[in-house]
Structures are given as structure tokens and as C-alpha cells.
């Protein structure tokens, strides 16, 4: 590398950026298409799809699709529900799973390895295949609500939150990360007489920012995109999240402009959340991947 002449280096650099940009176009074009299409009337949108105009905000550009989408469905409510459900689940999940993972990674106890193996095996089960048995489970759980005690969790936020707090992937991510941390930290704290709880809180959590960020974004994506489960358990509009709301737009003749506007609006919170966590996220996967 040191031998490369300055002129060559300029060309080299230019080539690298060209390649990087070309690849970037491959990854971003459908998203540009979505945003641009949301600004066009249906007729023009469909004509434009076949050409490069699909990516250019040209022609009859307006925000009409957005107004119409908000008129057709309570979009604000759906986004509020999704953010609430996702936010609470992610927060609880990070806490409960990291707590459990701490035990799997640092404490030695009977049955630990078997249980961890079972937890990792749960990753194999696609949710779609157990949704109905799960419906029967939540329908027999007790709950306390404003109207008193009752059996059955349907039609609530909690039925969309509690079942997803613990999940194998999140636990696995934390365990892998914790196992790579220097054990001396724990031993030193233990010798100082700290309890396990204190070690978790004062030693481990402060140095685990990256894995918390990774787990947060992955959990956020999975929760925000939930569809089948809320469809089954949220009968009243009041509790419906964004992916169920998408169905409001698939009438006999689909108004594609409105669909694109809706998709843009519901993708926005995820992008914001992702960009917010991006730095920590990349650093975090960098460290969780080490041990495989």
C-alpha cells in the first residue's frame, strides 16, 4: 500500500467510492421507490413503476395520499399502539433476558446447561406454528382490569406484550456477550463481598451497552412487525398495531398511493430508532460475534 503513487491513490479512492455507492443504490432503491410513490396519485404511480421515474419525485406531487390514509384509518392510534407495545416489551425484555443470561453465563448451578440448550432450541420454532395453542393459553390466564378480576387476556395491551418478554435469541445474545467479558471483574467484586444482584447492576450492566443496543434493535424490529398475533388477540380497534392497520388499505381495488404513504409513515419510527442506536449497534455486534 505504501508504494502506491498519489495519483493512483486518487483513482483508487474514486473507484472505491463508486463501488460503494453502486452497492448502496441496490440496497436503497425500493425504499426510495416507496417514499417517492407515496407522493404521487395512483394513476401516475402505476405508470411510473416501469421506468426510472419511479425514483424521482416528478409530475403531480402532493401529500394527498397522506391525508387520505389518515382519513381511511386511525393511523396515529396504530402507531401509538405499536410504539407503546414495542417500547414496553423491549424494555422488559432487555431487563429480564439480561438478568437470566447473567445467571447462565456467570453462575454455576444444576441443570443450567440443559436449560440453556432448551432455550436455544426454542429459536427453531417459528411463531406461526404455535400461535393457536398460545391463544388457548392466554385465554385461560387471569387478569385484573378496571372492571375487576376476569379470566382471559384478549383485547388488551398486555396480551401483546407479556408473551414476548422472554425470547431465546435475546437471551442467547446476552449469554454470548457476557461469556466474553473478563471473569476477573466478577471475581474481584465477589471478593469485595458484592451480592450477585449488585454485580449485575454495578459491574455488568455498565459495560454492556453494545449488547443492550443490539438486543434492543432486534427485539424492536420483531415486535414492531408483529401481525398474526395481534390479528388474533386484538379484536377492538383500540388495541390494534400498525401491521394489522395495513389491512385497512387492501380493499378490492387497492389505493397504492395511500398504501405507500402508510408504509412510509409506519417505517419512520423504526428508522429513527435504528439510526439512534446505530453506532452502539454496530459496535455491539462487533463484540457479540467474536465467540460465535
Amino acid at each position, binding site marked *: 500500500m505504501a508504494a502506491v503513487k498519489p495519483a493512483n491513490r486518487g483513482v483508487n479512492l474514486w473507484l472505491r467510492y463508486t463501488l460503494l455507492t453502486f452497492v448502496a443504490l441496490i440496497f436503497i432503491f425500493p425504499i426510495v421507490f416507496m417514499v417517492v410513490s407515496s407522493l404521487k396519485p*395512483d394513476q401516475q404511480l402505476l405508470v411510473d413503476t416501469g421506468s426510472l421515474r419511479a425514483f424521482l419525485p416528478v409530475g403531480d406531487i402532493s401529500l394527498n395520499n397522506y391525508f387520505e390514509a389518515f382519513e381511511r*384509518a386511525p393511523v396515529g392510534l396504530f402507531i401509538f399502539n405499536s410504539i407503546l407495545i414495542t417500547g414496553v416489551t423491549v424494555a422488559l425484555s432487555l431487563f429480564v433476558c439480561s438478568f437470566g443470561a447473567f445467571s447462565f453465563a456467570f453462575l454455576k448451578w444444576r441443570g443450567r446447561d440443559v436449560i440453556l440448550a432448551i432455550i436455544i432450541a426454542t429459536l427453531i420454532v417459528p411463531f406461526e406454528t404455535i400461535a393457536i395453542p398460545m391463544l388457548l393459553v392466554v385465554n385461560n390466564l387471569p387478569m385484573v382490569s378496571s372492571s375487576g378480576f376476569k379470566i382471559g387476556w*384478549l383485547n388488551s395491551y398486555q396480551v401483546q406484550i407479556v408473551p414476548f418478554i422472554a425470547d431465546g435469541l435475546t437471551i442467547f445474545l446476552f449469554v454470548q456477550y457476557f461469556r466474553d467479558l473478563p471473569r476477573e471483574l466478577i471475581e474481584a467484586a465477589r471478593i469485595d463481598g458484592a451480592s450477585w444482584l449488585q454485580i449485575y447492576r454495578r459491574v455488568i450492566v455498565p459495560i454492556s451497552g453494545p449488547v443492550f443496543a443490539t438486543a434492543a434493535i432486534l427485539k424492536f424490529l420483531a415486535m414492531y412487525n408483529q401481525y398474526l398475533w395481534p*390479528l388474533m388477540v386484538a379484536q377492538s380497534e383500540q388495541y390494534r398495531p400498525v401491521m394489522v392497520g395495513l*389491512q385497512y388499505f387492501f*380493499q*378490492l381495488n*387497492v389505493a397504492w398511493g395511500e398504501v405507500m404513504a402508510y408504509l412510509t409513515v409506519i417505517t419512520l419510527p423504526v428508522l429513527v430508532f435504528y439510526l439512534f442506536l446505530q453506532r452502539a449497534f454496530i459496535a455491539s455486534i462487533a463484540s457479540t460475534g467474536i465467540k460465535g
Partner: protein
Amino acid sequence: MNKLTLFGGAVVLSTLLASTAMAQTELSMWYHGAGNPNELEVLDVIIDDFNGSQSDWNVVLEKFPQESYNESVVAAALAGNLPDIIDVDGPVMPNWAWAGYMAPLELSDGALDGFLPGAIGEWNGNIYSVGLWDAGLAIFARKSVLEANDIRVPTLDNPWNEAEFDALLLKLQATGDFDFAIDMGMAWTGEWYPYAFSPFLQSFGGDIMDRSTYKTAEGALNGDAAIAFGEWWQALFARDLSPGTSQDGADRGSGFLEGKYALQWNGNWAALPALEKFGDDMLFLPAPDFGNGPRIGAASWQFGVSASSENQDGASAFIEFAMQDKYLAQFSDAIGLIPATAAAAAMSKNYKSGGPLEVFFGLSENQATLRPVTPGYVVAALDFEKAMADIANGADVPDALDAAVDAINSDIEKNSGYGF
């Protein structure tokens, strides 16, 4: 301080008002029209009128997107969480009634007089559901196109026959003016397939299953008549007379209006835009007769009462209230559907004598055929849909029909004959 007292007083007052309203027993109602404001507006009027017309019941509406409505109902039923009043797609009703989700309606004598047969949901000797409207299908065509190609305009008494229909499709294709001679609507997957296409099968002399026993599809769906139908069907696509399964939903919606398709097999709900576009040139033609008379599907969305409701009398009362001709006419005006009674048709904008869609009332009255009235229909419809798609995509006709027959029969067997 004063403000606060005033505010407090208002709260007490509104609580009082609310509790007077609470004297009415709440009836929950589910409807499939979420995302369709025109339709909901009419329903809201009916509900408001009903709630204001008596002091016993107060109907509260919950709306669902149609795409996933059935899944929502089934999940709720599994969880024992159904509302008092549900709406149900006509052919699905026997399945829900058989499963014990629905209770027979308690209507007063004569309440159903004058209703189109397609709007009455009867199973096992009981009325379980009633539709405020029916839907009807027709071949959409332009008079000018037919005339230019010297094609006869068919009538209810004298529809096109198979040979005539085939010849005119080839003729239209040969003009080169159109992408396709006819659009069957393959982009509309789901219930559209059995609704729109199984009447052709019946006109050939076949059926989705054997209606004399409802215990098998053998013979009905893979006999000679059914194979003849399947070969006719396949030839439509093999010769590029109609767009196939990969048709774009947008083309389905606008292709006929834009002149891409010479003819279109479509429903009355799409008739108004076509009339607006082509005016007097627009024709709504009866289905061809393939040997056993021209047929079109019947039955659309209907209202029923859930079996778990503690207020079945109230739920029935609401449905009977909604069955008034003026509401039937209002629904028709709002969404273009066929009013379920002749009296309501006369009150409606489009179906009254001389109205632009009057012809559909005749089609519905004369050609409408119910899909198999059995709890097994729900699954049979999916197998029929798959066979139609596979045949259109070039599958071997008898094999595809055999596969559907086997799937339907195995389902009937797993359900111990569905009570037949």
C-alpha cells in the same frame, strides 16, 4: 374555585347522562368494513336510528379489515369472545352455524317476504343470517365494440352459448385492439374464484361437490362435465384470451376502463365507474350458457347472531330493524350493491325502474345460484381456488381436479361428514 365547582358539576351531570344511556343493554356488533368509510357511514346511521328508536338495546360497532375478518372471528370464537351480532359472508355461514358460533335468527313472521333468495342465509332448516343486499356478476362490455365486430348482444333469454362465446373471444383478440379479449379477474384471489367461476362449472353440468349428499366431490368436480369445463378454462389462458394468475391488481381495477380488455367478468360494485366512463355505450351482459343454463353466484355479506350472545332477542331485533327497505336502499346507494328486496330496489338510485343498474336485479333474480350450502364449503372453496389457479397455469386438467376432489373428500371425512 368557582371554575372547579362548575367543572365538577359538569362531570356529575355527564356521568348521570351516561348512566341513563347505560340503562340500555349493550349489544356488540362486528363488521368487516374497516377502511371503507362510505359503507360504515350507512351502518352508523342504522345503528344510531336503532339505538334512538327503543330503550332496551344499544348497539356498539367494532370494525375489522375484510382481508382478515374471518381469521379474527375464528380466533375470537376459539377464545369464547364473540360479539352479539356478527356479519358473515353468505357461503361461510353454514360452517359457523355448524361449529356452534351462530344461533338461528328470531324474526317476526313475514320479515323475509320479498327478499332475494341470495340474501337469505338458511341452513339445516333454520334462518341464520340475512343480507341487506346481494351482489351480482355480469360480462362488462361496450356496445360500440360489439357492433364494430358484428357480435350479437345476448339477453337473459338468449345468452351466448359456448361455441358462440369462444368464437367472439377469438374475434376480439384478432382485432389486435386489446391486450386481452376478456378479463376474468384472476388477480382477485380468495373467495372471488369460487364465487365467480364455480357457476361456469355448474353451467357445464359439474359442481364443487355432490349436492345430493354433500359427502363427496367425486364425479361432480372431476367427472366428464367438470373436465370439459376445466379444458375450456385452461384454453382461455393457453390462448391468451384472458390475463392469468399473475395479473396485476391495478390492471384488474382499471384495465377495462382503459380499453386494455374488450370484455370483463365483474360485479355490480364495479358498475358505476364503468357507467361513468362509457355512459350509454356500457352493457352488462348475462353469463354464457355452457349447456345447463347461465349461472351467476349469489349471496354476499349477511348479518347473524352469535350463539354465545346473552341477548339474542336484542340482536335479532337489530337485524330486523336494519332490514327496512329504506336502509337497503341507502346501502345500495352508498356502495352500489343490489338491494335485497324489489321495494328497496325501487327506492334506490341505481336499481329503480329505468335506473342505470336495473339490469343487475334481473340477473340476480334469474341466474343466481348459491354456492354449496354446507359447513364443508369453506375448505372446499380453497381447494377449488387452487385447482382453478393450477389449471390456468397449465396443470393437467383431470389431475388438478382429482387433487381438489381428494382434498375436499379428505376434509369431509376428517369432519365426520359435517353432520350430513
